[in-house]
């Protein structure tokens, strides 16, 4: 047997985020489509607002007449200001529900899709720890989360100026900034299903069901005093766009709770992933 010449080690130690980078590249198109889609929705609501405001009805009086449970579920306080309007239509609906579900769905595919598509064997044959694979794949989701917040946030700011109803800048920044921990937690919950199930579809469906159930729980608990404590067990209980935009209360502590919960769930997902057979 001839001995092989020793090849000098590559500078692998300096290159630490290949997996995250690769994942971000793979998701580039999805990120663009998502950002464009949500941007369209935002533009639509902003364009709608002037006609809403000039309508010859007292919209807030109408809201008063709604059952409290409905108001609670949609975060309805006022539709008579651009902040109140967007809090309901864009942030309570699109951010809390649509994006919450979407990022849970995306995260639920991170591991399970690779297992189902026979990619995980090859990925885990690389000199990379499972922890790193998991965390880098998850980290790649930060890019679409940031992209949609930065782009749509800027668009809302410019759009409200364009219709002559400039939104409060600090409130706008906070409603986006504080949504990030919320979306991260939704994604981590999706990730747990992703490491638990071998089939992407199953993991994604379970993740969507879980996030939606948590949201419903939050809504119900919000309108029934006796069980209002349950709200503190739901992610959406810690992110309230209406409070941020209308009441201008920035619950930094709640965001902290979401970040801690994200870290805890992430560690849980890691334990499951490292221990399991692939």
């Amino acid at each position, binding site marked *: *047997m*001839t*001995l*092989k010449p020793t*090849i000098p*080690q*590559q500078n*692998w130690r300096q*290159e630490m985020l*290949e*997996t995250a*980078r*690769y994942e971000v*590249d*793979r998701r580039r*198109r999805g990120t663009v489509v998502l950002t464009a889609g949500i941007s369209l929705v935002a533009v639509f609501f902003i364009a709608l607002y002037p006609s809403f405001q000039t309508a010859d009805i007292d919209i807030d009086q109408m809201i008063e007449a709604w059952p409290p449970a409905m108001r609670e579920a949609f975060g309805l306080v006022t539709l008579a200001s651009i902040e109140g309007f967007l809090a309901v239509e864009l942030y309570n609906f699109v951010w809390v529900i649509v994006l919450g579900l979407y990022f849970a769905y995306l995260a639920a595919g991170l591991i399970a899709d*690779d297992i189902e*598509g*026979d*990619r*995980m*064997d*090859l990925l*885990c*044959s*690389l*000199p*990379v*720890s*499972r922890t790193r694979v998991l965390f880098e794949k998850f980290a790649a989701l930060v890019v679409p989360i940031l992209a949609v917040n930065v782009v749509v946030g800027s668009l809302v700011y410019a759009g409200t100026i364009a219709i002559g109803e400039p939104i409060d800048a600090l409130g706008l920044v906070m409603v986006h900034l504080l949504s990030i921990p919320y979306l991260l937690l939704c994604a981590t919950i999706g990730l747990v299903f992703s490491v638990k199930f071998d089939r992407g579809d199953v993991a994604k469906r379970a993740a969507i069901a879980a996030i939606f159930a948590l949201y419903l729980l939050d809504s119900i608990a919000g309108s029934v005093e006796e069980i209002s404590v349950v709200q503190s067990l739901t992610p959406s209980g810690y992110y309230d766009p209406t409070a941020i935009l209308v009441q201008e209360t920035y619950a930094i502590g709640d965001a902290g709770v979401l970040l801690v919960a994200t870290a805890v769930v992430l560690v849980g997902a890691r334990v499951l992933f*490292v221990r399991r*057979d*692939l």
Partner: protein
Amino acid sequence: MHPIEASGLTKTYGSVLGVDSLSFHVESGEVFGFLGPNGAGKTTFIRLLLGLISPTSGTAAVLGADVREEAALIEAKRRVGYLPANLGFDPGATGEDVLDYHGAVKGDSRRQDLLAMFSPPIDRPIREYSTGNKQMLGLVQAFMHDPDLVIMDEPTSGLDPLKQERFHEFIRAERDRGTTVFFSSHVLSEVRRVCDRVGILREGSLVALEDIDTLLAQGGKRVHLRAAEDVHDRVRSLDGVFDLDTVGHELHFTYAGGYNELLDRLASFEILDIEITEPPLEDVFMHYYGDDTETDDPATKLEAGDA
């Protein structure tokens, strides 16, 4: 230190046995063929080696690293190439994307040479790849960091005969460079062509571990003779004759005894024609499988694969 060393390696899935207390090693610089029909446990063994699944009991070492120790195994994996049986890539990625990623993680000093030999269309998205193209991309990534040990699960599946031949040549050249190659196969002709040693796996257990030549020798000789008279009974009574098949005065049988005894017996016959050949590896293989009616007929699962 052996590149691969299994000691009492066992993996059970509930009540289903994957592999059963495998103990053997692969020598440095050899081409080792791991042979068995589908479901015998070949893939389970390989996935244990890579730490994708953890052993129920026993262990194995890859380039000295215990497969149960993730950190040690990761270090070893820098010098290991792997080609899985079911090769999955992101359909939207191009071959180049995948190789760039793998290269960034484990190195790609031989990428260009390999792409000259196996030529997947690396600038096209993988969803457009044929099975053969995917397999070639898999081969390039398995060897591109110039590993000391390459583990392959059914490496030639999906390759056309020409590429298979190129692959076999390549494997021999790799061995000459000092690379240790371990691969599983159910294609006997391939194992025979490129392997130095083979292990035969049956229902999770190693039933043979031999030099390929020894294995062939153990299988006896195939004898085909045409006699002028009925010699069936006289041949059958000879020690070492089995699988005797007689049609008229033509006889086929496998003979495991010494040549002299055979020739002594045959000398008393009026023989019109005789041919003594090495048995096909399939027949040798059948000896390890043929006596158990519980197993599915391995002949249906094993391909002669004379490509």
